[in-house]
């Protein structure tokens, strides 16, 4: 929605015009709606928790089950290398960090279709929805990550060849990058689904494919070094590798990879927000 604070022009607080501006992001307004973002987070968490019998236990069961399945299929049967890390730990590390990104992406992608009812009845900055989602997912991530830390502690105690280093302090940065990438890409998908509903059907499949291309199930070192630059075009590769490098001490992380990942994430985030802001102006007309 086009809006600007323009007190010089006759003291109007808000001017809404037909002319569309592509590059206006009203951060002040988002800040004023911070309570709404908090309440959305609370609602999503409480609602998910109340609707299931096992409640928050699901957040733990899900990654643990996936890890077991992957350990059996890729570790035991396919015998893919894991940079000498115990396979269970290797897959769990990848899945937990990937999970945060995938959740941000999936939920942001459903912003318009999932909130059509509210969006057609009341105005508030629409970006508060994907932002709230990213925060809600952070809670889920926190729970899953704690489980990962317990498993990590167990393996360290058993003397597995892992080296958790001071580099773990980059965790917030990795999360921020995943949130931006997830929100940005999700916003693009969400904007497109207002026009092309079929895209929603492809999303699940697409996210799955993306995971296979993101070094979640195998280390980057599996590939010859001269091809790394190509794989690293996928901004999730450096994130997952950095994650494993920091917590498990194994992974291929080079400066150019980090920069390319960060730049790609930022670009996708900005493009996503711009497209989203454009679509939200007339979204209500298409439902």
């Amino acid at each position, binding site marked *: 929605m086009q809006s600007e604070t323009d007190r010089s022009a006759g003291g109007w607080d808000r001017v809404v015009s037909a002319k569309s501006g592509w590059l206006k992001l009203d951060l002040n307004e988002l800040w004023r709606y911070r309570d*709404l973002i908090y309440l959305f987070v609370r*609602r999503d968490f409480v609602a998910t928790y*109340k609707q299931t019998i096992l409640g928050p236990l699901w957040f733990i069961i899900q990654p643990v089950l996936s890890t077991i399945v992957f350990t059996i299929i890729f570790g035991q049967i396919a015998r893919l290398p894991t940079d000498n890390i115990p396979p269970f730990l290797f897959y769990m590390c990848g899945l937990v960090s990937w999970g945060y990104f995938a959740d941000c992406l999936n939920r942001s992608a459903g912003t318009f279709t999932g909130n059509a009812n509210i969006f057609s009845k009341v105005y508030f900055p629409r970006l508060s929805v994907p932002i709230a989602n990213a925060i809600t997912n952070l809670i889920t991530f926190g729970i899953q990550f704690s489980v990962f830390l317990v498993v990590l502690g167990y393996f360290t105690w058993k003397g597995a060849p892992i080296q958790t280093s001071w580099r773990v302090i980059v965790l917030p940065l990795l999360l921020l990058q995943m949130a931006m990438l997830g929100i940005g890409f999700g916003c693009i998908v969400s904007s497109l689904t207002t026009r*092309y*509903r079929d895209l929603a059907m492809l999303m699940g499949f697409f996210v799955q494919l993306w995971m296979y291309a993101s070094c979640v199930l195998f280390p980057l070192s599996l590939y010859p070094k001269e091809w790394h630059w190509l794989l690293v075009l996928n901004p999730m590769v450096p994130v997952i590798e950095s994650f494993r490098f920091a917590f498990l001490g194994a992974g291929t992380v080079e400066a150019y990879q980090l920069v390319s990942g960060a730049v790609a994430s930022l670009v996708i985030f900005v493009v996503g927000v711009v497209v989203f802001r454009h679509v939200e102006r007339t979204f209500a007309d298409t439902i």
Partner: protein
Amino acid sequence: MQVIEADKLGKRYRLGVINRGMLYKDIQSWWARIRGKEDPNIPVHVAQNPAAVRGDEFWAFRDVSFSVGQGEILGIIGRNGAGKSTLLKVLSQITAPSAGNFKLKGRVASLLEVGTGFHGELTGRENIFLNGAILGMSRAEVRSRFEEIVEFAEVGKFIDTPVKRYSSGMYVRLAFSVAAHLQPDILIVDEVLAVGDAAFQQKCLGRMDEAAFKEGRTILFVSHNMASVRSLCTRVIMLKSGRLEVDGEPGPTVDRYLDQGSVDWDVSKRTGSGRLRIGAVHLEDAGGGRMAELVAGQPCKFVLGFENHGLGPQDRVTVGLSMHGAGTDLFANYSHYSGREFSGLPARGAFEFAWPSVDIVPGHYTFGIRVFANGDQHTGERLDTPPPFMVTIHSSDFYGAGQHGGLSHGVMLVKGDWAVRS
């Protein structure tokens, strides 16, 4: 001081473009264009008349300019399709205008619906905070009015119960209560007042009145209920086919709205011999006052004006009214069913159809009129069949407890008493 200023506002919809919604159809159209073939997805009326491609767009309203001063209660009236709701959506910033601009001063809250964003799993308390925030209140503001909201809603001890266990009356009262305690500088309200039982509706109207007069808030109010528009508003604008037709005092504007008759005929589309023509049609309430719409459970009268173009004193005329909606035909009532045939009609006059009680679920319905001479609808001479017209039935407190099922629970409203026998 002016707090709203709208300048040449317009909203355009593109027919056919919206809601195509399928990627493969867009690709299909694009591929057809490249090969110079006809677009298979073009709407039929456009394909038949390529010159009408420009007509592929539709203006819900256009060139609407007005300004509103602080403390005014501005009523917005007009028929279905006049553009009221779209104007409200644009002013509420739910959708952007296609032309012109508007300016606002102060905090704005819009209520196109009560209880937007209510979540069944959350308690009344949690929903008050969530709904308040969606409507633009901070948590601190909601907290400071919390007691008032609960008291106004009359939900008392159920405040910590999930709202999915509320009765629909309680749910609506809680939702409205949050809305009523918003303290924006400008409040935009759609017909949300048509909820709850009669006493609660009255309480809500009182609350709006108080907000405007005591607290200096500005209110924009869209309604079909001419009685409340007349009593509540300080000024009224009337939209007609997307244009601003009148901007003036409530009394005269409402009168003018009601005087238009209820139906705009497209004269070219009628069929029949034409020895008698139905002219202006309007609706009256029990007291003979004109109504723009029907009210569920209330009596009404359809007044069908006619002009006699050559019926003699011997010709016997039977007239019928039919009602259609919810995908079915609801009734047809020909005057000869009750043994009434009219002869010796004057040059100008009106048929009256008195309907003792409109026991129909609120909604939009279509009505048809047929007039025959010297026989019934099978054997007689068809005099006139004007095109069908739409009438809205709006809700009332039919069962006395502020509730009724929607159209999915049937079309009829039937009063009855429930009891237990042991």
